[in-house]
């Protein structure tokens, strides 16, 4: 509110040694983002069941600090778990647009990544959710195992390290 991350970053750049402070600040913020990834509760099809299984006792996503939020407003990422149909695509896009920046998308499973078994001969399937929203991580599998989803979430967390968290801040 008021001051954006960009302005803080610009101010830091002017101070001698500010670059170092900025880098460390980014590290801390990226650590925070990595440790607290909240996906939106959004299941489309078969993969959603594996997504639920990932949250259950056997795999326990909460170990990584991952909790599901029902409203897109409080979510950091969207796990597109299942086939996206043309009827669903506008809703999915709206959901994505309702999420606050910075936001990420995981395309879970073959259907979300590229249409999967419904690529050919289906009149209602979107052949890959990347036609609708930008995707950061693709997971193969039909459906992927919970371990794969966990791996993707960890990989996404690691990828934050390349970003300037402060410049992404809009708070």
């Amino acid at each position, binding site marked *: 509110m008021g001051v954006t991350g960009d302005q803080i970053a610009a101010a830091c750049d002017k101070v001698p040694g500010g670059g170092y402070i900025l880098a460390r600040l980014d590290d801390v913020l990226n650590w925070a983002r990595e440790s607290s990834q909240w996906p939106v509760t959004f299941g489309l099809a078969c993969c959603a069941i594996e997504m639920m299984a990932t949250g259950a006792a056997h795999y326990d996503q909460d170990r990584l600090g991952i909790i599901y939020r*029902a409203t897109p407003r409080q979510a950091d990422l969207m796990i597109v778990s299942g086939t996206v149909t043309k009827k669903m695509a506008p809703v999915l896009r709206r959901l994505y647009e309702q999420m606050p920046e910075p936001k990420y998308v995981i395309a879970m499973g073959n259907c979300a990544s590229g249409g999967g078994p419904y690529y050919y001969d289906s009149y209602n399937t979107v052949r890959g959710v990347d036609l609708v929203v930008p995707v950061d991580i693709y997971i193969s599998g039909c459906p992927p195992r919970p371990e794969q989803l966990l791996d993707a979430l960890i990989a996404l967390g690691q990828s934050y390290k390349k970003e300037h968290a402060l410049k992404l801040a809009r708070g």
Partner: protein
Amino acid sequence: MPLRDFRIPEFDAPEVQLPTGELAHETTIVSMGPQHPSTHGVLRLMLKLDGESVLQVVPVIGYLHRGTEKIAEKRSYAMIVPYTDRLDYISSMYMNLGYVRAVEGLLGIEAPPRARVIRTILGELQRIASHLVWLGTFGLDLGAWTAFIYCFRERELILDLFEQICGARLTYNAIRIGGIVADLPAGWEDGLRAYLTAQEQGLRDYEGLLTGNPVFRARIEGIGVISAADALNWGLSGPSLRGSGSTFDLRKDDPYECYGEVDFHVATADSGDCLGRYEVRIQEMHESLSIIRQLLPRLQEPGEVQTKVPRVLKPPAGEFYAHVEAPRGIFGVYVVSDGSANPVRVRFRSPSFANLSALNTMCAGMKLADVVAILGSIDIVLGEVDR
């Protein structure tokens, strides 16, 4: 690839003319879903509310309509089996079984005895797994988180057993035309026995957590009542129908595989409300365990698990309708062949589709929170509603 640009449809409620006069109030139209925590996927309910009371529910479906029936017209008979996995993805085994039985009927062949025993066991395991997902999500709908985690704990054990047979956790493609994919791996029966013991303890856990809980009972007793006659008229099937007192169960009424040879009773409840449907499913899990126990000795008998079928299936021209009692109700498959390698038409009659159609009837006069409970109690899977 650039993102497609399209207009996002706005949901605009109609302009409401504010009523005037004393005690004036207006109704609200709320769109629940397609993304909502308790619509079990991508169902959308349009609710007409008067405060918290529900006046009308209009389910809007098709958000997961993938055109499976159209795709099936372009595939060979064996290639359709994996697509059936993805209809009711919570009970894929049963979807396989339904379709495979239809094609077998068309071909006039039958699976070998050992395959039929294994199919029955897999089917009942799948029924328990499916009911566990239902119980967990039903608990979630009512705000009881812990039951969900408990149910998934035992479900993992079933998935491990399935995985040993076919290598997949959810979409099995394990029941094939003329048999099953492979014989049981060594040691599978021991795993099954260990699971049966664990599951019995698990069932005690869930019941301890939910059945006697006064809050849980208060939430579901007398909610979403539908009479047996109404339920039949609406085409309800499975536990949603038996919760109203009907004993209609294809495992008894039109036995297939080994169901004619095992002893079990059809679980029913008379109340016709959410509690009745809950009790039926809990009883069914006990019955399924008993069916599996009865069939366990027959796993010792060696034998083939696959009849010889040609590589390219060309059934004679004709049609066949097969139906099985899937965990959610009657799953019917209607296959029409013209003698070529691809079917003319494959029709999937999905239980959830019919069960969902009666939602408005059940929700009359209920509160908003009850809609969630009722929807949870009829246990729909959007994959098979939309197909």
